[in-house]
């Protein structure tokens, strides 16, 4: 007799899913995912730096560059990152073999992450896995080189991967209050990534009553050279449907739902406990329809997960071709498009410092073209002489005021040494510390960049004009609303003119 196993939800065994953390930042994200309790899914940590690797909570770890870097990191050099990955290709390949879906968490901008990720993605694709990449871009203040390295890697990944979700660290400020500690900012960033991974996994392994699966996911993401729009929200209690939707739309990747307007197809997956009602789903879809264009292909799925209890989660996935992404956020500023690419529809970055310093013309040509040559000579030199280059790389870090705190953000555990390191660095005894420092690199690479700052300067200009904030205002004679009143003189100052302008003139 043939036994009929009743599984209305077509669950995929979670053993077919693998989550990989690559480099220091990747390891931090992976740790976060592990701490959040991802049952079932396999986790693999990859790093050249043996220190961080041994600190990882992932059950499976592969050391990269056993012969090449001998347990040290790649010192922010993507070429080296590429080499160490190739060295470990076989081990990685066998670890990925047979997995249906691979999530790759990586912080771009440094060595291991930027160099290794494209290779790893290729390996995974060759093994027949569906690859979803969660990448972080470096902070604006980390300098142009890191941003360039990150962009180069990102461009490669956009082509190689099935889905690419990019999170710009510069946008991290939106996740937490300005006053909150840096570690909170980082854990918020990691948490967001971890939530995203969970949501995709939920979607894939539990396709549900109304089926959506890998095929739909592919459809939703099927635009070449695209960036993924992603939002996921969970809520419970009264009115959970609209709360969950609001949470999902608040994802920085969606820009409050504004980016969805451009989407050609949107995958919506709703997952709830056993009390999920049809009415809730209807309500939710109705609300969502305001954000999604009418002609868009909506791929809808719903699933019941008893673990959700009384919560309801919604996941929105869509993709936008890169040109559109910029177009939608910077319509008014045509010249700026290419430049903004890295921040991926994140709007302006808000770091004020580098903004004006950098010269604008950087961005005229699409970032895609500037591939590896972009890596400055300094990096090449590093490879030749193992020790010197690390020092250099680290000196770099020291210059950047925020480099250390940042590391500590995503990986609180490792940070103390890292921050001590710059001082003790010069001495031989510092070797150990140097290793400790390594995690720093891949991470701080995520921060980054000049291109956008360059843009920012310009942007400011343009915004000002756009807002009518041009010179006329600074001539000082305008008094706005009080224009037709007599001068409001107190102690020789006309109080109707903004002090902001009067002070400036002095």
């Amino acid at each position, binding site marked *: 007799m043939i036994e009929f196993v009743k599984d209305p939800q077509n669950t995929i065994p979670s053993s077919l899913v693998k989550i990989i953390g690559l480099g220091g930042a990747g390891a931090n994200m992976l740790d976060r995912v592990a701490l959040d309790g991802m049952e079932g899914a396999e986790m693999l940590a990859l790093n050249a730096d043996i220190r961080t690797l041994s600190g990882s909570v992932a059950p499976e770890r592969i050391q990269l560059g056993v012969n090449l870097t001998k347990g040290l990191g790649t010192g922010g050099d993507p070429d080296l990152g590429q080499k160490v990955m190739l060295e470990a290709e076989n081990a990685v390949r066998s670890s990925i073999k047979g997995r249906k879906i691979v999530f790759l968490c990586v912080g771009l901008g440094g060595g291991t992450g930027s160099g290794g990720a494209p290779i790893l993605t290729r390996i995974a694709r060759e093994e027949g896995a569906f690859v979803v990449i969660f990448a972080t871009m470096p902070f604006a203040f980390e300098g142009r080189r890191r941003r360039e390295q990150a962009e180069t890697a990102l461009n490669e990944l956009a082509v190689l991967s099935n889905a690419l979700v990019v999170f710009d660290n510069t946008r991290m400020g939106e996740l937490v209050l300005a006053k909150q500690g840096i570690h909170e900012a980082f854990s918020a960033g990691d948490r967001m990534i971890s939530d995203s991974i969970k949501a995709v996994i939920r979607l894939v392994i539990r396709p549900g009553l109304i089926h959506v699966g890998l095929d739909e996911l592919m459809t939703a993401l099927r635009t070449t050279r695209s960036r993924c729009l992603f939002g996921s929200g969970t809520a419970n209690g009264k009115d959970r449907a609209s709360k969950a939707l609001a949470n999902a739309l608040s994802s920085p990747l969606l820009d409050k739902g504004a980016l969805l307007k451009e989407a050609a197809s949107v995958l919506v997956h709703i997952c709830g406990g056993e009390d999920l009602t049809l009415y809730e789903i209807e309500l939710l879809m109705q609300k969502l329809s305001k954000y999604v264009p009418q002609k868009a292909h909506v791929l809808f799925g719903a699933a019941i997960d008893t673990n959700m209890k009384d919560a309801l989660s919604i996941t929105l996935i869509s993709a936008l071709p890169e040109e559109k992404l910029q177009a939608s956020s910077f319509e008014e500023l045509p010249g700026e498009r290419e430049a903004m690419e890295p921040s991926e529809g994140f*709007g302006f970055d808000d770091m004020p410092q580098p903004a004006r310093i950098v010269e604008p013309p950087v961005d005229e040509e699409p970032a895609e073209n500037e591939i590896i040559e972009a890596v400055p000579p300094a990096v090449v030199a590093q490879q030749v002489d193992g020790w010197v280059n690390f020092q250099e790389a680290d000196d770099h870090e020291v210059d950047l005021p925020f480099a250390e705190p940042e590391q500590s953000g995503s990986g609180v555990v490792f940070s103390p040494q890292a921050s001590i390191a710059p001082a003790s660095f010069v001495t031989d005894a510092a070797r150990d510390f140097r290793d400790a420092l390594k995690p720093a690199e891949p991470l701080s690479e995520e921060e980054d960049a000049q291109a956008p700052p360059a843009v920012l300067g310009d942007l400011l200009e343009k915004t000002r004009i756009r807002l009518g904030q041009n010179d006329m205002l600074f001539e000082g004679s305008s008094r*706005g609303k009080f224009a037709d009143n007599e001068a*409001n003189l107190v102690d020789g100052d006309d109080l109707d003119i903004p002090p902001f302008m009067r002070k400036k003139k002095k």
Partner: protein
Amino acid sequence: MARARIHVGLEIGTSKVCMVVGEVRSDGSVKILGLGTSKSAGVRRGEISDYANTKECVDDALVKAEEASDVEIGSVFLSVTGSHIVGMNNTGTYRLPENEKQIQPEHLHEAKEIAKDVHISPDHVCLHNILRSYRVDGFEHSSSPVGLFGKTLEVDFHVVAGIGTRIQNSIKCVRELQVDVDDVVFAPIATAQFALDRSTRERGALLIDIGGGTTDYALYLKGAIVASGCIPAGGEHVTNDIHMLTGLPFSRAETLKIKEGDASGDQSRSVGGIKIPVDEKGFSQQEVKRELLNEVIRQRMLEILELVKKRLPPGSVEQIGTGVFLSGGSSLMRGLDELTHQVFRRAIYRAQAAEISGVQANFKDPQFATALGLIRYAQLADVEKQNSSPRGFGRIWPFGKK
């Protein structure tokens, strides 16, 4: 005061006209019966600039207040403000005749007359004469020195004066609505009645009422008023500043100010930008940098506070024992308390009165502080009238005698 009396306070402000009806009970407690507000039009920097419009607004507030309180309003206490109103201190010195050693009521009266006789320009009229203190041979007495021995008697007065015609216009505006004006009160003095209690004034307190078009202040030291005045800048100016520096229309600038603005100068609150969403009327999306917004607000607020500080008698800020009380709609600005602290280095309070009952929501809002203060003022005036000579509190009705 055997029975409850009903008083009405009217404030014609730059941003709103506000009328409060309060019942003063026989035990001295005050209950707010109703409140009528109307958006103000035709008032600039605390003074009426468009008479017809203002009258309509007052009428609207009147109708609302009557409806809310179910009281027919026959007369009101009116608060006035404007940069033309100034407060100054004057001392009257009277030397007792050789053969008299004990101070007699007529001596005191003489001293008071001298003190009140400050030089005010012809177009100004006196709004308040507030007795601050007595001194007998240089020794301070806070209560009447009648019956004491002494040679010279000095009386300190705080005199508030303003341009007569402008004040008359405010009164006319009300009178034309068939409502009588019981008294005209300089706004910060009314607000102080509400916000500062006796012990607070004893220890010294500065009240700053930042309204729409003006900022009024009153300083009390040792229980007596030391300085009062008005600076012709307020919340409306903040909005205007934002409007001019960002190019946003007024309504947007106003919402932005209320929802996002911060005056503290704390850099961590100036991170990022605020997206102003697209609205139905085709207003395209803009982003305003918090840094710019907050700096514009801060500069304005800072200037206002610095101006207040400059107007106070030298050394008086150090004598403030209790602290600085903020009131008025603009005092709701985020971070203003921190900024005020930076300027005055004194404890900062939000003006609140304890002994008023009624609809809680109404008097918790600092926007109504002045109108509520008028009720307190009326109550005190009543008490004065009953238990002392007609000029006991030192107020005179500036127009009645003309």
